């Protein structure tokens, strides 16, 4: 049995593409992701969790990093390793506030309906469902990477 890290060195690229930095571009990217994962035999619940995390990460890029940017674009890359699906999202927009991704605290459920949160769920879901999340700012680009613990095992 090879060491975990060695297994992961052999990552098979699944897709890497540019998309428009708009909600429609996010839909398109998620469609490309579903096709990229086709044939890896992810269960439907796993596939949904994976799509949800990537959707939340991309929505944040479009709504925050790329807001007001002319001709906004982002790149979504996926690869398959022994420990799951590795996701890389890059954009040329604004950096994260404080240079770090939000902690994504669990949503608080207040007693009063009027006080219910209508946002702030995104980073909580990302933190809940993604593993080994990293963020770096490099050469004017944001680069977010994380692992989804699905489709684990030997990479065909």
């Amino acid at each position, binding site marked *: 049995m090879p060491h975990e890290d060695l297994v992961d060195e052999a990552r098979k690229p699944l897709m890497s593409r540019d998309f428009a930095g708009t909600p429609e571009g*996010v*839909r398109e990217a998620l469609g490309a992701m579903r096709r990229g994962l086709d044939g890896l035999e992810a269960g*439907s619940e796993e596939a*949904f*969790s994976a799509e949800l995390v990537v959707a939340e990460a991309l929505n944040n890029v479009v709504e925050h990093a790329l807001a007001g940017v002319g001709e906004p674009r982002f790149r979504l890359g996926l690869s398959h390793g022994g420990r799951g699906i590795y996701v890389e999202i890059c954009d040329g927009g604004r950096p994260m506030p404080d240079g770090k991704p939000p902690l994504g605290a669990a*949503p608080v459920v207040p007693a009063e309906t009027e006080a*219910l949160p*209508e946002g702030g*769920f995104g980073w909580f879901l990302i933190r809940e469902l993604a593993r080994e999340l990293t963020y770096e700012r490099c050469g004017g680009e944001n680069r977010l990477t994380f692992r989804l613990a699905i489709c684990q095992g030997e990479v065909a």
Partner: protein
Amino acid sequence: MDLVSEERGGDLVVRVEEERIDAAIAVRFKDEMRVRLGGPHPRVILDLSRVDFLDSSGLGAVVAVLKEVGADQSFALAALTGNVEKVFRLTRMDTVFTIFPDVESAFGGVAHAS
């Protein structure tokens, strides 16, 4: 944004005829639901049986709709698919809404309000 409304026993059932409630349609969804809440119906039931994907923007829009409900009106969800149910559960918003397993149950009085 495709919403189909049907009156039933004085109440209004609104079925979302979209596979996704996501960032691309969340605002439109909220606006169209606001119009439907403005009617005379004491109860509005949102049928989510056709919705296979809900992200946090969609969830935020459903929460926003709940907050628009009038004092003499109630709002409930029905027929959450597994994916949608998961988002409500993870964010604990399942504890905030009245959720019926299907539309029929909403009219038979069996809810699993948590």
